């Protein structure tokens, strides 16, 4: 049948009508994204100075929900009472955003900092709660960095979703300030559950695997780490990297182990076979990917030993 209606005028009219719908929504999303969290002058949206008033060195732990539930500041404080410990684990965080958060932290003049960063895979988009540690400009920089080495259809889809999604921005208005006392999105989380399976746990055998990743991706990781290290040295701070004890995705395992194996010993916490064997038990896990409270205590004691022997003992 002849389709006399179908011309470019018709398409343009339809496109214009569509834009009348899409543009107000985009503007709303942009306005919410550009809104700063209430009462937050800088990121991290917390005042580390209050933690450093006594002039003590502060240890920060940045990573995902695995860091949230593995590293107990109270346990560390008990073992090393003359230092401060702050868990900045952020649910659904990823490596580039973690490094950016570390960089933001080091820009603040609030005493000596030793920052532990969890090695994780790459993710284009930040977590909803990114505003606690990062600004929108930080997100833009990380997105550019990510897309320079990798751009998949899933990344494009994710970016489109992020442009329209206001879920995190609403949270920014409702929960603006960082509260490190047990909020589910950030900070140490006690988890009393006892139901984990061991499939994702690192074992001594798995720990020795030396996988290979794309040279571009590895180069980007090492470049970011190198810049962070330089930033740290300029202000008398220190950067350390930790491997998650539980890694479910094979793709993440490959990336984490490749980067971990490239790092010099003085920049990472290497687990002993004895420690990995000791941790390999369901009673320390709340689920496949997270330690429970008991597991966090054991892990944190081991971490305090590492800090005492390696970091505090070195000149």
């Amino acid at each position, binding site marked *: 049948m002849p*389709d006399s*209606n*179908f011309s470019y005028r018709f398409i343009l009219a339809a496109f214009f009508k569509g834009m009348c719908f899409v543009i107000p*929504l985009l503007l709303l999303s942009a306005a919410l994204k550009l809104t700063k969290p209430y009462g937050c002058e800088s990121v991290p949206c917390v005042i580390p100075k209050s933690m450093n008033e006594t002039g003590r060195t502060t240890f920060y732990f940045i990573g995902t929900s695995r860091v949230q539930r593995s590293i107990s500041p109270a346990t560390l404080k008990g073992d090393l009472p003359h230092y401060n410990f702050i868990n900045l684990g952020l649910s659904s965080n990823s490596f580039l955003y973690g490094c950016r958060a570390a960089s933001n932290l080091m820009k603040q003049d609030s005493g000596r900092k030793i920052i532990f960063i969890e090695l994780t895979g790459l993710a284009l988009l930040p977590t909803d709660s990114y505003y606690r540690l990062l600004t929108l400009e930080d997100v833009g920089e990380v997105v550019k960095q990510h897309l320079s080495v990798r751009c998949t259809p*899933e990344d494009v889809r994710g970016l489109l979703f992020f442009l329209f999604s206001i879920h995190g921005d609403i949270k920014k208005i409702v929960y603006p300030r960082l509260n490190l006392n047990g909020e589910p999105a950030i900070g140490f989380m006690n988890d009393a559950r*006892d*139901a984990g*399976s061991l499939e994702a746990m690192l074992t001594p055998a798995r720990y020795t695997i030396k996988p290979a990743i794309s040279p571009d991706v590895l180069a980007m990781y090492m470049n970011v780490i190198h810049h962070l290290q330089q930033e740290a040295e300029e202000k008398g701070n220190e950067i350390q990297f930790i491997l998650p004890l539980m890694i479910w995705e094979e793709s993440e395992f490959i990336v984490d182990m490749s980067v971990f194996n490239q790092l010099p010993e003085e920049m990472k916490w290497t687990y002993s076979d004895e420690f990995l064997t000791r941790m390999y038990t369901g009673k320390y896990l709340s689920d496949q990917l997270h330690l429970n409270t008991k597991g966090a205590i054991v892990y944190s004691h081991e971490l305090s030993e590492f800090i005492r022997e390696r970091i505090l003992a070195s000149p």
Partner: protein
Amino acid sequence: MHVTILPVFLCTALAICFWPLLKNRISARYVLLFFSLVCFALISKTGLAVLLVFSVIVYSGGRVIHQMKRDSIHYSIIAVCLLPMILYKVIGQGAQGTVDTILLEVVGISYFTFNGLSYLFDIRKGYLIPEKNYGHLLLYLSFLPCLAAGPLHRYKYLDAQFSNAFNITGEDLSRGFRLILWGLFKNLVLAQRLKAIADPMLDNPGAYQGIFVWLGGLIFFFQLYCDFSAYVDVSMGIARMLGVQLSSNFSNRVYASSSRSEFWKGWHKTLNTWFRDYFFFAMVKGRGRAGRIDLIMLLTFILIGLWHAISWQFLLWGIMNGLWILAETKIRARLPALSSRFWTMAGVVYHLSFASCMAVIFRSGNLRASWQALLSPGKHQFSEDFMLAKFIFIIPLFLIMDLINRAMKDDTIDVYLGRQKNWHRWVFYFLIALLIMAFGQLPGENHYYARF
């Protein structure tokens, strides 16, 4: 397997944009065919190769069946056509989670296999003469909006639709947009949030037992409806924008069915009518005894189960569905007609109670562990605060969908909204869009049924 809907949107947009340039030079079908194949290639290159070989077999097989009306030839060709799908299901299941699965990804294999078989069966029955134009048949097998989630159609129906492709008005674009928006709401807002609740309850049989496994099954049942029907809505919407009208695959409130029979009349309708027309009726013909009919009914459900996956799990699921339907039919024949509101509600409770258990079997990664967990005393690991935080959003959002489904009655969302005033429609569009923006979550994987 991960299919992104973006190539489908992109190819649809390109087809619409290029059509005014091409309409005086080339038939609409060839434009649709070109962009369908481009879309297929973007999603799955292996799949495109399999599709092309399959389409040649169906094209030549149709001509052979029409000329040589012998059962042996007919069944041989059917067997050859079924082979790729069966091999895919057997090998694909074995290679789950390995690099090889990337090479084995054949998007839409069930879609084009069932459509191809439907074409051959209709030729055999004399409902159809073989298509002379190979391109027309290839378009029927590869139509881009239907790749990931169907629905299935008879050749005659879709062919008639394709002859009218691109003959669209502003109303077609609006109707397509309404379907897509509604599908996005159901998937990004409801299905993803329901998934986040159901997954831990069903993946940890050590942590969640008894009634909490049943609850996980119930939530998964709702998740599956929202997920699958969303993809069908988006497919229908995209097709509508191309001037092609697809059949609806789900009744609006199929999740509130008061019996299993009612459920199967409204769930995945095009697949069920396919099995009914090409297997059940073909087997029942001439075998009028009630016992045989019941056996064939059971076999039909077993085949539907095995289509999902060739495994003991889905064999059991198929058998249980078949037995349930048969038991319902026998019991209903002995009961008086119960049509009051009370009995309808009781029926919904009855159906959901058992459907949740069936959902546990359907979804389970370890059937023995799941079944043991289901039959154990109740145990859970989540905190009440955590559950409150999850349900506090999902319940009102689900109720919004249900209210709209009730208002729609038997219409699809595009027809229902078309009857409303203009400003009512725009308020609806913006409200749904805001809900998607505020509560939507990005899917981490394909819609559940894409794996089949």
